[in-house]
């Protein structure tokens, strides 16, 4: 039987439908989620009804907080943040109430909530519509941070998020929505904290997330066979599969981190720090970060492109490191 190919956004839509069909506690809300224009949530209202799929007023604090409360009551809310940038108006609900209620309560309550957020640059949308920001959420204890880089992972990780007992920030790069891939029709899960070894290699380890995974693979293609590049996609940055990264490092001795988020105090810094702490004996060369520099994303496409990590920058970083 031919394997079925669908897009990343279709995979996410399917994950919603499967979980909503099998569990009446799964509810969906956010801005315009019932609109037919929204690829990930379209059709849900028609299939599961206006009670379980609701458009919320443009009040992220109120509706994300409502998600936290609903989760504490045992529902499984999947709440959509139209863009991760807009989450900044609701950070108390996310970083305090959603993230910490379980711990603060000594385990008396759980917050099984999935907060989906679109992210990413590359569309000339400027400083408040282009960010990644996952490092902000990863910095704070209590939130699992998930960044699928392909349709298969998107579906499996979303189902895992919904079924799990913890608050999850689920990040979807908007430029990945049209990406196609083989996706099984049935429900399945991709576990958290298990990196994907996207490509084996021997000379250098590249850790990349989200949209950057594809760029890392392109860079690896371009450098092959001159240089053998191992590409690791952590899939979840909290929890992080340090073992797979360190094991790879013990083989290659070289590390490049490709991260669309800002560099300073970002995920790329964290991986570099782990290497410097726990992988030091393996390191044969300086660690290199290919991240977005500490600059707001400008509107001008040429300026934007100049700042963002790219295949070319990855190739250059690897070449300098290995060459």
């Amino acid at each position, binding site marked *: 039987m031919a394997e079925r190919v669908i897009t990343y956004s279709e995979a996410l839509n399917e994950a919603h439908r499967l979980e909503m069909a099998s569990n009446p506690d799964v509810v969906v809300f956010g801005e315009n989620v019932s609109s037919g224009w929204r690829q990930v949530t379209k059709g849900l209202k028609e299939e599961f009804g206006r009670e379980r799929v609701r458009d919320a007023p443009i009040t992220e604090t*109120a509706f994300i907080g*409502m998600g936290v409360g609903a989760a504490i*009551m045992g529902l499984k809310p999947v709440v959509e943040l139209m863009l991760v940038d807009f989450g900044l108006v609701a950070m108390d*609900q996310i970083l305090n*109430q959603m993230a910490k209620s*379980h711990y*603060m309560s000594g*385990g008396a*309550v759980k917050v099984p909530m999935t907060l989906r957020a679109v992210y990413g640059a590359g569309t000339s949308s400027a400083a408040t519509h282009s960010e990644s920001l996952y490092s902000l959420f990863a910095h704070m204890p209590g939130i699992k941070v998930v960044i699928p880089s392909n349709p298969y992972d998107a579906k499996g990780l979303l189902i895992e998020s919904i079924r799990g007992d913890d608050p999850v920030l689920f990040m979807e790069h908007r430029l990945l929505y049209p990406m196609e891939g083989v996706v099984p029709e049935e429900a399945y899960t991709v576990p958290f904290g298990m990196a994907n070894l996207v490509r084996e290699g021997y000379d250098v380890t590249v850790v990349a997330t989200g949209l950057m995974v594809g760029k890392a693979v392109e860079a690896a293609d371009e450098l092959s066979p001159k240089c053998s590049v191992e590409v690791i996609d952590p899939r979840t940055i909290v929890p992080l599969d340090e073992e797979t990264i360190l094991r790879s490092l013990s083989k290659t001795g070289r590390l490049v981190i490709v991260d669309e988020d800002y560099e300073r105090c970002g995920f790329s810094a964290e991986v570099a720090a782990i290497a410097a702490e726990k992988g030091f004996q393996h390191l044969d060369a300086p660690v290199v970060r290919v991240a977005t520099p500490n600059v707001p994303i400008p509107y001008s496409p040429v300026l934007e492109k100049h700042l963002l990590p790219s295949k070319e920058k990855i190739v250059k970083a690897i070449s300098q490191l290995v060459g």
Partner: protein
Amino acid sequence: MFDLEIDEETKIELYRTMVRIRTFENRARVLIRDGEIPARSGFYTGQEAVAAGVCAHLSPSDQIGSTHRALGHLIAKGCDLKRLMAELCGKSSGLNKGKAGPYHIFDPSVGALGANGIVGGSVPMVAGYALAHQLRDDGGVAVSFFGEGASNQGGVQETLNLAACWNLPLVFVCENSSPEVQRMLGHEIDYPQLSIERVSDRAQAYGIPGATHDGWDVLEVYNAVNDAVIRAKEGGGPTLLEFKVHQIEGNLEGRIEARDDEKIWCPIHRFKERITDEGILTTELDEKIRDEEKSKVGEAVEFALRGTVPELIEAFKGVFAGGP
């Protein structure tokens, strides 16, 4: 609003709840002084009528969200006094293993979800409790307590709109620590917190019913909340109730009565006079209630002090429910 016929038993219960809260808080003050409770926090003294009058209408399957001044709400909602006091003392026998302290207590077994260290922080969450009742159609209701300071917070105002748009079974209870009293006392206020006198005047801005009452009169609270809870349970949506309160001083001697000059705002004093006049409360009964509450609180203190501090490994446990 019609005046409810409130039976004697209920009145005595209301009185008892208020006495319990004050007794508990006065003992907590002593434990703070003695270093057994490791941090200061907000007290509810003077506001007991609100918690008592509101929670008398709720069952354990109804929820409240509370504030930084949560003890009154938690006690009125039925939290176990022992485990509550142990929590304040940071013991592993506390409601939340000593991790919460006064600002973050959660007790789902009685619907106390939860105290909150962020002004206005619990209010959006309460919308989620109400949403769960609405979706399950179980006739439950959720109550959101907050102060007049919190009433201005963005998240609180957003939630008023959202609850109204979705017709959630929610009662907003704003305890207004009485700027009018502040003014009577001659406090200079350069810039007011609130641009209006009555928080409940905001209700109409969300298309929901609202009213202001004296929070030092427990029967007035009880009556007002009755209507709002019925409306919510019957699908009539949210209500915004405001209760004026005056935060009065507690004491270390365990006295139940307020200072003489505070008696006009003291809900316990006022209600005692009333039900004494009505012949419901006799001196003997009053003493019995006070003794009983004192001994319950005493047991709670003993329980708390007997408790052990958490094992160090607990610090790292429970960041996630589903590991790792």
